[in-house]
Structure formats: structure tokens, C-alpha cells
């Protein structure tokens, strides 16, 4: 069991309904964490319905959904970025 801060930005934040939460999880990868979150409530299922529309950062570095969570303290989910 690990404890991870999970952050949501932009419309992911709006769908989930909060910007940040502390999550206790057995997940070994980002994809497994997503599965756990999806199973929680409809709003999570909605936020994570299309992974191709999402990006993920682990400890503030962009990564993939199959990235391991070993040692991770912070995972963030958000849509493709639109800076500049």
C-alpha cells in the first residue's frame, strides 16, 4: 500500500470535482491507478473515459500510463497542454 498525492488539472479537475487528493493505493503503475480511480465513482469514470485525451506526470515529469509508481509521491492527470 502506498500513499500518493493525485492532482487534476483543467477539465479533468472539473470532472473529478477537486484539484488534489491523497490516495491510498495498491497500484503498481499509473494505468492500475487509473483503473482503481475509475472504479470509485461515476465522476472518475467520466474523467478517465478516454485515456488518449489525457496526459500524466509522475513527480512533475511527463510520462506514460504504463509508468511504474514505485517511489512516486505525486501523480497528475490533465488534458494535452495549451501553453504559449
Amino acid at each position, binding site marked *: 500500500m502506498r500513499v500518493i498525492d493525485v492532482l487534476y488539472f*483543467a477539465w479533468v479537475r472539473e470532472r473529478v470535482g477537486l484539484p488534489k487528493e491523497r490516495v491510498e493505493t495498491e497500484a503498481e503503475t499509473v494505468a492500475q491507478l487509473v483503473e482503481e480511480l475509475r472504479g470509485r465513482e461515476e465522476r472518475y469514470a467520466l474523467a478517465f473515459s478516454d485515456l488518449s485525451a489525457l496526459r500524466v*506526470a509522475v513527480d*512533475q515529469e511527463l510520462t506514460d500510463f504504463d509508468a511504474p509508481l514505485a517511489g512516486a509521491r505525486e501523480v497528475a492527470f490533465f*488534458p494535452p*497542454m*495549451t501553453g504559449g
Partner: protein
Amino acid sequence: MEIRVQSETFLPGEELDAFTARVDGAGAVVSFTGIVRDDSGALAEMVIEHYPGMTERALEKIAAEACERWSLADVLVIHRFGPLAPNEQIMMVATASRHRKDAFDAAEFLMDYLKSRAPFWKKERSRNGESWVAAKDSDEDALTRW
């Protein structure tokens, strides 16, 4: 190298002159300024959300990579967050180098990466409602040339 993420407005010209003054030995300075466009004529404001902490790291990484790839005397990146009115400046980059090609290429590279690799998200609020600005395929494609 100076990276600033701020909600306050700024004057690109003032920043450009200050940047140029502190750069030594550069023959070329390129700046890019991004401005809130109101294409519909109905835009009330643009709200920029970002990921504090990761934003600074991402911008520093992008700027450091530009400094590795090109011969640059200095780099400046300023990006705002929070609510912005139409015609306000969103962000700017400036690059300085001995020869113009380095400054131009580095500024374009910074912009291309900043567009789709720095954690900013834009929401437009207009009379017709609000919506998140969608990422453009062309912005993702722009990265392939570097």
C-alpha cells in the same frame, strides 16, 4: 537564463530592453510575444491554469535544452497564469546570440515546446459560455522538426 511564471501583467518592450541591456556580446536578440486573441468578438476573458512546481521545472528544462542546442548568450521566458483580458500579453520568450540564426531557431524551439510540453491550460470565457482551448495537432506536429 531567467524563467518567470506570474499572474501579474508585464510589458514585453520593457522586458526586452532589460534583457538586451544585460546580455553582453550578442549581435542578435529575438523576442516572441503571445497575446490573447478575441476571434469571436465575444471573449470576456481567458483563464490560464498551470501546475505550480512542474511549470517552472518544465520551462527550465526546455530553456536548458535550447542552450545546449544553440549558442545562446541568454534566454528569457515569462508566462502568466490566471485571468487575462483580450489583447493582454500571455507570455514572451527572448533569446540572444552572436548570430541571428541561433536566436531565431532557439526562440521557435522554445515556443514549440512551451505550447505542448509546459503544463498550462487555457479556458475561454465568452458571452456564449466557457470552454477549454483544445490542443492543436499542428502544435504537436511542430515538435517533430527539432
